[in-house]
């Protein structure tokens, strides 16, 4: 037998051994997986400042000896829970901000109750956000507040900023925020006004059921759930992979219902009439033009975002009225832009270097 052939045989034998070991580990870990709960998420120490309706305002306890003057209010997307930004220690965006010396507040949402189906866009933009801003000002003793909006939280922040353009918002950071809803091609087709009877749906169900929201997100990549489960089984021997999978899977399926009237407003004004992009958006009768926003703004978009494609987000920076404005496109998808290993390397340091010098 010649040398290369012997080498190959040795490597095949190693490979077989390693696969057998992994197969055994898969069986052991597979049982563990189904018999244990996932990692505890959202555990950075915080205080609840206010709970009202679907609105929850948290203040995270500072972790630095000296903090920036301007506090941050994070506005979460109304379809999902805020713990995506506070996974486990070492992988928490909130913890990162606290350690870098920011004073962090979060406006997180809970499921609207059946009798809260009448909450409208104006309740979110003209009541919940201004109320949180007031409470942040009161709690921090500072007038200025920076706002970070994730996905639809970014849309709400833009609407707030375009109406309350005289302050107190000091800086605005949007993560993957759509403004041209025609370019969200699949969502746009799902809600085609010729076939999608939003009035009938909401009149029937009251609030928009979370199952329908989750289904529409999953339909964007119909094969991905099955593929991710196959990958999970292959990697179930790997504790780190399983931990990351469980964190993301739990968050991804933990979708919130939307208040019925609020969903009706979104469908008619944004999905059908594209009013934010067309500069015809009003909230509670108040004009909400993006050009009214004059504060420094950073918009972070993801290169492979299947939920908010770049075409739906790219006009934000051009339409905004600020002179200090920047768009940054980073590798990753809609979620990996803000959470996980990709975010730790890319978005978080970028945000810190941009916001730090604007927070004094």
């Amino acid at each position: 037998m010649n040398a290369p052939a012997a080498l190959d045989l040795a490597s095949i034998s190693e490979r077989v051994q390693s696969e057998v070991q992994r197969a055994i580990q898969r069986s052991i870990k597979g049982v563990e997986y189904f018999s244990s709960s996932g990692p505890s998420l959202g555990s950075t120490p915080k205080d609840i400042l206010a709970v009202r309706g679907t609105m929850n305002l948290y203040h995270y306890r500072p972790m630095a000896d000296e903090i920036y003057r301007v506090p941050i209010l994070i506005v979460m997307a109304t379809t999902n829970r805020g713990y995506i930004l506070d996974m486990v220690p070492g992988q928490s965006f909130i913890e990162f901000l606290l350690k870098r010396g920011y004073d962090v507040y979060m406006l997180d949402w809970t499921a609207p109750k059946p009798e809260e189906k009448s909450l409208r866009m104006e309740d979110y933009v003209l009541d919940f956000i201004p109320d949180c801003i007031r409470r942040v000002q009161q709690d921090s003793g500072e007038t200025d507040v920076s706002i970070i909006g994730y996905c639809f939280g970014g849309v709400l922040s833009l609407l707030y900023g375009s109406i309350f353009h005289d302050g107190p918002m000091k800086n605005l950071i949007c993560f993957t925020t759509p403004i041209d809803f025609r370019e969200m091609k699949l969502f746009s087709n799902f809600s085609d006004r010729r076939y999608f009877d939003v009035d009938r749906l909401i009149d029937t169900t009251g609030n928009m059921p979370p199952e329908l929201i989750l289904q529409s997100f999953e339909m964007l990549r119909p094969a991905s759930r099955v593929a991710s489960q196959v990958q999970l089984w292959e990697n179930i021997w790997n504790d780190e992979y399983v931990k990351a999978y469980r964190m993301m899977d739990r968050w991804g399926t933990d979708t919130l219902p939307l208040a019925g009237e609020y969903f009706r407003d979104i469908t008619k004004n944004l999905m059908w009439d594209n009013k934010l992009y067309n500069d015809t958006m009003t909230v509670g009768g108040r004009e909400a033009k993006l050009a009214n926003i004059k504060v420094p703004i950073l918009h972070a978009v993801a290169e492979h975002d299947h939920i908010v494609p770049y075409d739906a987000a790219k006009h934000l920076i051009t339409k905004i009225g600020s002179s200090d404005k920047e768009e940054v496109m980073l590798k990753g998808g809609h979620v990996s832009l803000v959470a996980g290993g990709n975010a730790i390397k890319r978005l978080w340091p970028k945000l810190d270097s941009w916001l730090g010098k604007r927070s004094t």
Partner: protein
Amino acid sequence: MADKGNDPAVIWQTMIGEMEKGFNSFANQAMTSPEFSKMMNQVGGAGAGAQKQLGELMEKYLLAMNLPSRAQMVGMAERLQAIEGQLNEIKVLLHQVHHNSLSQDGGMGAPRPPRTRRPPSEGEQK
């Protein structure tokens, strides 16, 4: 090490990845058609209506069986939430009242760090 190109595990993973991409792309193309939207919304609309009717029927059935309905359970959950909310308010008040005694555990009454932080100079940033 075995050549990665011949490694069955790598081939399998690549195949799964490619199948996922291919199917997603094919489905996305199919889903952009107006016919798909029409069909999806017809099915979805009928489903929502049927779900509501089933819910009403179940409620009657549970009432007949002397069991609590979902609406009653939701009502109880709301009362619990209201109690939790009131407990939170009491907690906040207690924190305020005992401002000094709580100052050691870093809670709400704890003194905040000074707001004097300056951004690191360009060279210091990692």
